[in-house]
C-alpha cells in the first residue's frame, strides 16, 4: 500500500526551531563570532582567527595559565563534592523512614536547602562562617582552630565545600530515597531468608537498584558543581588570592571586568565543550559497563 507522503507535518516543528534559534543557536553563534575576534570597545572588531584558542590552551600564556588553573580548581571541586555528596546522600536515604509520620517530615526538611536560591545560600554561609560574628566561624576559632575563609586557603575551600554539601546532598538523598522506595518488599524478604547481612543487602539489592537514579544524580551534581559561580562569588569572591576562582568567576572577570569579549567567548566555548564531552563520556561509561559485562560472560 502506498502511504500518502505529506511533509506538512514539518511545520509543527517550526515553533521549536524558532524558540531554540532565538534563545540558544543565535546567542551561541554570537559567542562563536566573538571568539574569533578582538575588540577594543566602540563596537569595533578585528579578526583574530584561532588566536584566542591557542592562547587559551597554552599554559605559559597569561590567558591559558588563568584558564587552566581555574579549570583545575573546578575539577578538584567537583570531584571532592561528588565524593562526599554521593555516599552521604545514599547513607541519608537509607536512614530515612520508609513509612509513618516521619516520612513527610524528613522529605520537607530534606527539600528545604534545595529551595534556597544560590545567592541566599552564599549569603547565609558568608555570615555563618565569619570568624567575628558567624556562629560557625566564631565557634571553630574559639575551639582553637585557625579558621578564616577570607585569609586561609583551606578555610576558603572548606567553607565552599561544606556549603555545597549542605545545599545539595538532599538532592542525591531524595533521588536515592525514591529509588529505594521502588524496590519491592519481596527483595528484602528474600534477602532475609537468604541470611544476607545489612551490607550484603546493600551491595546485592539496593546499590544495583539505585544505579539509574545515581546516574542521574551524579550527572546533575557534576554539571551543577562544574559550573558553580554564585556561592564562591558571594562567599569568597574567588579568594583568598585566586584560590577559589573557578572558571565561571574567571569568565565573568574577563568578559565583564576587562571587557575582553574575544578571550571570554573562546573560554566559554571550550568550557562548554568540556562539560558536554565529560557528560557524554560519563553517561556512556555508566550505561555501557553492564552490557559489556554481560557480553563478556555470555
Amino acid at each position: 500500500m502506498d502511504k500518502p507522503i505529506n511533509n506538512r507535518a514539518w511545520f509543527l516543528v517550526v515553533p521549536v526551531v524558532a524558540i531554540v534559534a532565538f534563545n540558544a543557536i543565535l546567542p551561541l553563534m554570537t559567542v562563536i563570532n566573538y571568539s574569533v575576534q578582538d575588540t577594543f570597545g566602540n563596537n569595533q572588531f578585528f579578526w583574530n582567527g584561532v588566536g584566542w584558542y591557542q592562547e587559551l590552551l597554552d599554559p605559559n600564556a597569561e590567558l591559558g595559565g588563568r584558564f587552566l588553573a581555574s579549570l583545575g580548581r573546578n575539577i578538584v571541586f567537583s570531584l571532592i563534592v561528588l565524593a562526599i555528596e554521593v555516599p552521604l546522600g545514599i547513607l541519608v536515604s537509607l536512614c530515612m523512614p520508609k513509612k509513618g509520620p516521619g516520612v513527610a517530615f524528613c522529605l520537607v526538611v530534606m527539600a528545604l536547602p534545595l529551595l534556597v536560591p544560590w545567592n541566599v545560600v552564599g549569603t547565609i554561609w558568608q555570615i555563618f562562617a565569619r570568624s567575628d560574628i558567624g556562629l560557625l566561624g566564631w565557634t571553630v576559632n574559639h575551639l582553637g582552630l585557625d579558621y578564616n575563609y577570607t585569609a586561609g586557603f583551606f578555610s576558603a575551600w572548606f567553607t565552599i565545600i561544606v556549603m555545597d554539601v549542605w545545599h545539595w546532598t538532599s538532592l542525591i538523598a531524595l533521588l536515592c530515597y525514591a529509588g529505594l522506595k521502588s524496590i519491592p518488599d519481596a527483595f528484602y524478604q528474600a534477602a532475609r531468608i537468604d541470611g544476607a547481612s545489612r551490607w550484603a543487602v546493600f551491595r546485592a539489592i539496593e546499590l544495583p537498584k539505585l544505579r539509574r537514579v545515581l546516574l542521574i544524580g551524579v550527572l546533575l551534581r557534576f554539571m551543577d558543581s562544574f559550573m558553580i559561580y554564585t556561592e564562591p562569588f558571594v562567599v569568597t569572591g574567588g579568594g583568598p588570592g585566586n584560590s577559589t576562582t573557578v572558571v565561571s568567576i574567571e569568565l565573568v572577570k574577563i568578559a565583564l571586568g576587562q571587557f575582553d569579549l574575544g578571550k571570554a567567548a573562546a573560554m566559554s566555548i571550550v568550557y562548554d565543550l568540556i562539560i558536554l564531552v565529560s557528560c557524554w563520556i560519563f553517561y556512556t561509561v555508566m550505561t555501557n559497563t553492564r552490557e559489556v559485562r554481560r557480553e563478556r560472560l555470555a
Partner: protein
Amino acid sequence: MARIELNNLAHSYKPGPADASDWAVKPMTMVWNDGGAYALLGPSGCGKTTLLNIISGLVIPSAGKVLFDEVDVTTLPTERRNIAQVFQFPVIYDTMTVAENLAFPLRNRGVARRQIAERVKQVASMLDLSSDLARLASGLTADMKQKISLGRGLVREDVRAILFDEPLTVIDPHLKWQLRSALKRVHRHSRTTMVYVTHDQTEALTFADKVVVMLEGEVVQIGTPQELFEEPAHTFVGYFIGSPGMNVLPALVEGCKAHIGDSTITLGSSYPKFSGGQKVEIGIRPEFLRVGNGGHGLEVNVLRVEDAGSRRIVRAEIGGLPVAAIAGEEEMVSAGRLSLEPDPKRVHVYADSKLVRV
C-alpha cells in the same frame, strides 16, 4: 526438612480485632508432615499468603504457635528458621551471575568455598541450570529466574521447608507445566517439605499430595485432590475445584429424598431433619449427572451444549438456577426439557454451606 505444626494459629493485621472479618487468618490447627508437598488453594485475599508469611517468619501471628519439629519458632526471625521462599515475582540479585546467586545464601552463612561450589553444581544440575551458571542473572527469562529463586532455597542442605507464593504468576503458559514438572521432580528428589500457595486449581492439584482449601481466612477442607473432587467439605470447594464446578442447588431434604423445585431425587442415605434457619443445599458434580429418560431426575431446561473437545458440557437451568452436566459420547442432547439423573451416592447435602455427613 521438618514437620510443620500450626497450633491455634490466627492473625489479624488490625490491632484488637473485633468482628470475624478483621481476621486475615482465623484460628486454625494443622500439621504438615515432613517431606510432604502441600498446596494452599483459595481465591485472592483468603489469607493464604499471610499464612505462608507466618510460616516463613515474615509475619508474626497475633495468636497461636508455629512449631517446626516440635520446636516453637513463632517469634524466631526468618533468617534463623532455615526456610526458603519463592515469591510471586522472581527475586534475583541483578549484578550477580547465576552461580553467584545460587551461592549467595551459603556465602552469607560462611560455608567453605569448595563446599559452596559443589552444592551450586548439584543444584544447578537438578534445575537444568548447569549451562547458564556463568551468565548474569538479570538477562534471563522469568522462568529461569524463578528456578534460581528455587535453587537458592535448595542449595541449603539444612533447609526445613520451601514455600512458594504463586510462583508461576509471571511465567508464560507454555513454560508453566515445564516448571511445574521440574518442581515435582525436585520434590521427589530432595524430599523437602514444600508448601505451595496458589489460586489456580490445576497448579494445586498437580503439585500437591494434600491440598488445603482456604476461604476468608478459614481452612474449609484439607484433602487429597481426589477427596476434594469426590467429597467437597464445603460448597465453595465444590465449585472452586472442578471445571465446570459442582452444581449447588437449594433443596428441601426429607429423609433420603431431596426436592428441588418440582423435581425429586433420591439421596444415598437418609438425613435427619434440618432446622428451619439452616440453608440446605445439595451438591452434585456435573460428572455424576446422567442424561435420563425422565421420571426420577432433575427436570431441567437445556440452554445449550458446549463442545469442549473431549467431552460435551450441557448447560441447563432449573427454576432459574444454572445446572451443568457432562454428556456421554452417545447421548443425544438437544435444547428443551430434559431429565438429568444423579448417581445417589454422589449427591451431597450441605447445611449452611458445610457438608452434612451421616
